[in-house]
């Protein structure tokens, strides 16, 4: 684990001496995953930081910047869209309930409110679907390239 240098030193967080009681199971698993045994298995804390130089290097990668700016814009757009849809529904209920009580048409008892409610449920699912589709295609490809580059 060459990445596990912590930038902040905290007392008592060193990984040494923590893994005294290796079981056979964890030994085999470590070997299978190519870790040296007993070696230094990451502690609860240790896997949690990346070498600052590596982090800086990845952050400077133009593909990383592309990924982050595209994805965060997209994430926030989708989140705000969901909130707008939901709050439009809630504020309608709070301020203009009679509009929601109106019938969809002649000869039906179904109200505008019920249709809107169902549409909000469907919108929640459709938005997650659209997001997952784009993330699976575009964002994962970019991430894979960044990872490859960081090796």
């Amino acid at each position, binding site marked *: 684990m060459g990445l596990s240098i912590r930038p902040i030193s905290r007392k008592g967080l060193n990984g040494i001496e923590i893994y005294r009681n290796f079981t056979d199971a964890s030994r085999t698993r470590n070997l299978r995953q190519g870790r040296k045994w007993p070696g230094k298995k990451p502690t609860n804390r240790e896997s949690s930081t990346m070498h600052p130089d590596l982090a800086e290097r990845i952050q400077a990668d133009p593909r990383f910047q592309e990924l982050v700016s595209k994805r965060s814009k997209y994430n926030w757009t989708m*989140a705000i869209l969901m909130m707008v849809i939901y709050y439009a529904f809630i504020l309608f209920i709070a301020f203009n309930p009679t509009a*929601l009580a109106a019938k969809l048409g002649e000869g039906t008892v*179904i109200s505008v409110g019920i249709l809107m409610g169902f549409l909000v449920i469907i919108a929640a699912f459709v938005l997650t679907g659209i997001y997952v589709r784009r993330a699976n295609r575009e964002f994962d490809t970019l991430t894979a390239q960044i990872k490859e580059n960081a090796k």
Partner: protein
Amino acid sequence: MRMRPMMMAAGLAALAYAGVTLAADGAKKGVNMPAIIMFILFVIATLGITYWAAKRTRTAKDFYTAGGGITGLQNGLALAGDYMSAASFLGIAGLVFANGFDGLIYSIGFLVGWPIMLFLLAEKLRNLGKYTFADVASYRLSQVPVRAVAAVASLVVVAMYLIAQMVGAGKLIEVLFGLPYTYAVIIVGVLMILYVTFGGMLATTWVQIIKAILLLSGATFMALAVLWAFGFSFDAMFSKAVEISPKHDAIMAPGSLVKDPISAISLGLALMFGVAGLPHILMRFFTVSDAKEARKSVLFATGFIGYFYILTFIIGFGAIIMVSTDPAYLDATKKLIGGNNMAAIHLSHAIGGDFFLGFISAVAFATILAVVSGLTLAGASAVSHDLYANVFKRGQIDEQAEMRFSKYATIALGIVAIFLGIAFEKQNIAFMVGLAFAVAASANFPILFLAIYWRGLTTRGAVIGGLGGLITAVVLVVLSKTVWVDVLGNAKEIVPYKDPAIFSMPVAFILAWFFSITDKSARAKAEQEAFTAQYVRSETGIGAEGATQH
């Protein structure tokens, strides 16, 4: 562990004992045999799974996250299972039965938190976390104080949720199976201890998956039966309901549930952001192998939960038509036997007789068991991983010892849950789930969100913000009508709003912001510098926890 078969045997003995007493006074209360048989089948199957899972649960990682190898579809079902509690099944169907449209407002609120969770948190959470959400919140901050606050807030949420589930379980089982309240609570407690202690996250996940499939199939069958009676015409179904309901056309429009805009917005905030702060939900994101599976699991969960809420809406209307006019389901005062929350249960009888009633009753019981197991595991993880291993032992503990401790914590929590369930039997617990969501949205969510997104957050800000949100939410709920008047019996509430989130969420964010920007310590500077490494990992998953291969 030699105690394993012994404990299993003890659990089965408790069940058998309950069965005997049940048979003894069954004659009086009218015991539902199909329900009992189906429930026992469920218990045997899930104990079998627990036995299988126990052999595969060897490390702390296995115990907390099922080894991290759960697929997106499985986790989606399990998330949906965690979320579709008996309270939301029977409660929302009952709300629709009584108020029509208003029931839809609640279910939509419960659903819309999921897309928000996906867009803002799910993948980053997976990339940064290990076992609990406190891992993420304390990633670059000082372990001891941040974990302590996160664990306390988690335990408050888990306790509120658990009390609501245990009391609901006891009452429901009393009505459905004719079993005394105390026995019902003990059976639920003992079974959940068995699942979680021996099978860890793997058993809990599979119990959740099975229950989700049973619940979705049962609800689908009921909704189809209702629609079939009206030739699959929604219009015909709604027309009949409007004709029969004493409220007539009012059931198609917003009623009294949402009184003023502030309450409406506040409830919406708690529901929307509360999901992203529920420890038992957040924990599930560490059971999948990577960010992609985490993302897929939210898609599946949103689909299943949305579908389920549409079903409960149809079921509620079905109950208006098939149950509300049938004297068999009404008491002397023309009210539904067992209250409005029994609407779905009575409808199952109207549709499929004793057999289908038995099936739905058994599913409701299974639902409670699965949800309390998930909650207990989340609570036990907060105790063992956060409080014991990282706060008390300062991280100086090997994983085997930590796992052993988490099993003790599970047993202790299970016993506490049984006592709380018994203690709160006669209390009005309607506010509990609302409070759980409010605390989740006001303490857990703000710390988690700021830790991931804001470089400026420091330990001081996170601790004061988290505690501020937690205390504000609890105090406002205590002073509102739901506790101050309905539980404590005072004449007039002090705070006019039932839902605190519109106040407590800003309190958390503002405190966290203020005490971070004024924190000029060397530690604060180091924590802000460490953000870059965290940011890169949260975006790319480089260095993230992987799955173990079994």
